[in-house]
């Protein structure tokens, strides 16, 4: 136990924790959306995220930036991030939709039991991760350094780096957009209807197949965005990075109440903070234990997560 580190580093820990938490939250939203509609743990979502991370890497490569090139100026940096965000989001979204068509749709047509979906998801996860492993020769790939590490501004011990700021702004922006999309638009109403009662929604004229594809697309888009920020934060990526992030993000979704969009946001940020504080208290190699212990304890007292499950019931 090292309380000095925690107290002295508190501002830094909070900002890094929130930045990491935003990445968890973005991925967690993908789990929660699919779970809310299909009651299915989309085990392969972590690989969708990993594909987003590589899409960003390749985009930067095509634009002439690899891990050896110097840091671009601010305008170029923003352009690089923007293009990577768009490309990675679209790529991940595409992968997610293909995944749904190949691995889940045939099972839904046959009304397979839930376990069959889970195994199919595990199979898809193997295929995606190992295929990427074969393409990248299972090597760790370096990420070009794009944003400066110096703090942007500091006030009373609180500092924030450009990367953390961009991560917050984009992550929160994307999440509010999603919240609005699900709560206010026609498509969003379709999603909520299917989440509440798929068969009744279908009778009311909602195209169930399209709604499910849309849900996977949305989850994929968010995972792609998360992939870009993961790259920038981590400085490298590998074909198996999805696994750990996926587990963390799924835990975050459960923590907040799976199937609940705002729950995923709260759960993600909370998990990021808990990890950061926990790492300072007990040492960084205990991070994952702390995250899981918090999850276990919380589930003892609130068995359906912090905010409870509800994609269908409340206003998302």
């Amino acid at each position: 136990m090292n309380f000095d580190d925690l107290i002295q580093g508190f501002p830094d820990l909070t900002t890094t924790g929130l930045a990491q938490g935003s990445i968890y939250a973005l991925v967690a939203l993908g789990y929660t959306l699919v779970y809310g509609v299909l009651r299915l743990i989309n085990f392969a979502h972590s690989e969708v995220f990993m594909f987003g991370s590589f899409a960003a890497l390749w985009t930067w490569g095509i634009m002439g930036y690899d891990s050896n090139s110097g840091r671009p100026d601010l305008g170029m940096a923003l352009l690089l991030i923007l293009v990577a965000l768009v490309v990675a989001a679209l790529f991940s979204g595409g992968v997610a939709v293909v995944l749904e068509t190949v691995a889940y749709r045939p099972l839904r047509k046959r009304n397979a039991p839930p376990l069959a979906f889970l195994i199919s998801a595990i199979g898809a996860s193997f295929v995606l991760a190992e295929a990427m492993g074969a393409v990248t020769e299972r090597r760790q790939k370096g990420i070009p350094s794009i944003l400066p590490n110096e703090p942007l501004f500091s006030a009373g011990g609180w500092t924030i780096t450009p990367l953390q700021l961009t991560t917050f702004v984009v992550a929160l922006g994307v999440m509010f957009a999603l919240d609005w999309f699900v709560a206010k638009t026609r498509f969003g109403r379709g999603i909520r209807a299917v989440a509440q009662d798929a068969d009744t929604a279908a009778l009311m004229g909602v195209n169930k197949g399209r709604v499910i594809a849309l849900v996977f697309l949305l989850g994929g888009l968010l995972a792609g965005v998360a992939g870009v920020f993961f790259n920038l934060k981590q400085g490298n990526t590998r074909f198996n990075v999805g696994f750990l992030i996926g587990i963390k993000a799924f835990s975050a979704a459960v923590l907040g109440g799976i199937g609940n969009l705002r729950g995923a946001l709260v759960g993600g940020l909370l998990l990021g903070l808990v990890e950061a504080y926990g790492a300072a208290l007990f040492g960084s190699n205990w991070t994952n234990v702390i995250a899981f212990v918090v999850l276990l304890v919380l589930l003892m007292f609130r068995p359906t997560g912090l905010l409870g499950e509800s994609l269908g019931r409340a206003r998302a």
Partner: protein
Amino acid sequence: MTTDTIKKQRRGLHLGNRFRALPKSARIAALIAFVVLLYVLPVKGFYENLGLPIPAGDGYLPLYTTRSDMANVLFQCGYYILLALGLNVVLGYAGLLDLGFFGFFAVGAYTVALLTSPDSKLITEYNWLESPWPWLVTVPIAVALAMLSGVLLGWPTLRLRGDYLAIVTLGFAEIIRIVAKNQDWILNGDRGIPSVAHPPGTWSDGSPIFGIIDWSPYYWLVLTVIILVIFLIRNLANSRVGRAWVAIREDEDAAELMGVSTFKFKLWAFAIGAAIGGLSGSLWAGQANFVNSATFSLENSILVLAAVVLGGAGSIGGAILGGFLVIYVPEWLRSVGDVFGWPDSVEVFGVHIDVSPTSLRFVIFGALLIVVMIYRPQGLWPNRRRAAELKDRQKEVAPVE
């Protein structure tokens, strides 16, 4: 039964029904012959005399895993089959989704390692033990400890349902792995525990049966254990406990209302599953000689889960088939490359891609999982009762797309 279904049954092969129609003596004889066959599997000569065409050169044998020692592969299959049998009790009978089953395997393996290794800190630092214990004595302790950890995990968590239980069990396995990796007081972290004892026994010439050159005795040992465990599980499944499990799996609330003490029986399922997992771990530790945390990664738990569902949840035969396939298929795929002249790598847009079967074996295996789930969601060798339930389920829907 309508004429339609009878016709359908005639059309298929229905090996199961044909087998059951045989007289009892013939069935027993067939089973004995099959068991004998299982015992000769690691012998290389068996594959040479199978009568299957053997391609010249490269030393490839049909069904034999040329790239890795066959007896070792079979031993791995063996302890995965044990794990699958244990998880089958938890998932197949009681319907509890456990994503961290390898945690119990770790408990079993570490118990054996700590008690039998002369380098264990229990001896070198804490002086709790005078000298290392023999392997055989530690196995029951390992099983008991695994069972205890199953109860300890189950007690607070079994009130959770479905997917929440899944994430909690997953967290448990991860915690065990990370604790084993990080802490230095007993388990030695990443450095692990070396010189774990082997099972006892010597050949007539004085050399140990369970040595380090020939893996076959380990396979025979694990095969024998599997046969014993099958008897245990079969009897349990046909007893009051087994019926309670099925009732819980089908509808927990209804079972509770009919007077089944659901919590108690779920805890039993957890404990028995954990005990079998621990047994598997102790057998593995006896062969591996060295135990550290790297073995207990989460992927292994997932693989065991895949084994159970691939084979058919709730069926002993299915668990065995599944446990065998998840290890054997990837290993076998490694050795077929030599035969069919599969290229080792290709270039696409100037990118060098490694397409050797060794590299792609999990891609193929994953695709196989998807295909099997699409065409046989009940698993390859399903429990008859469950297969019937699933058939009803398929008929129920008119998919609205």
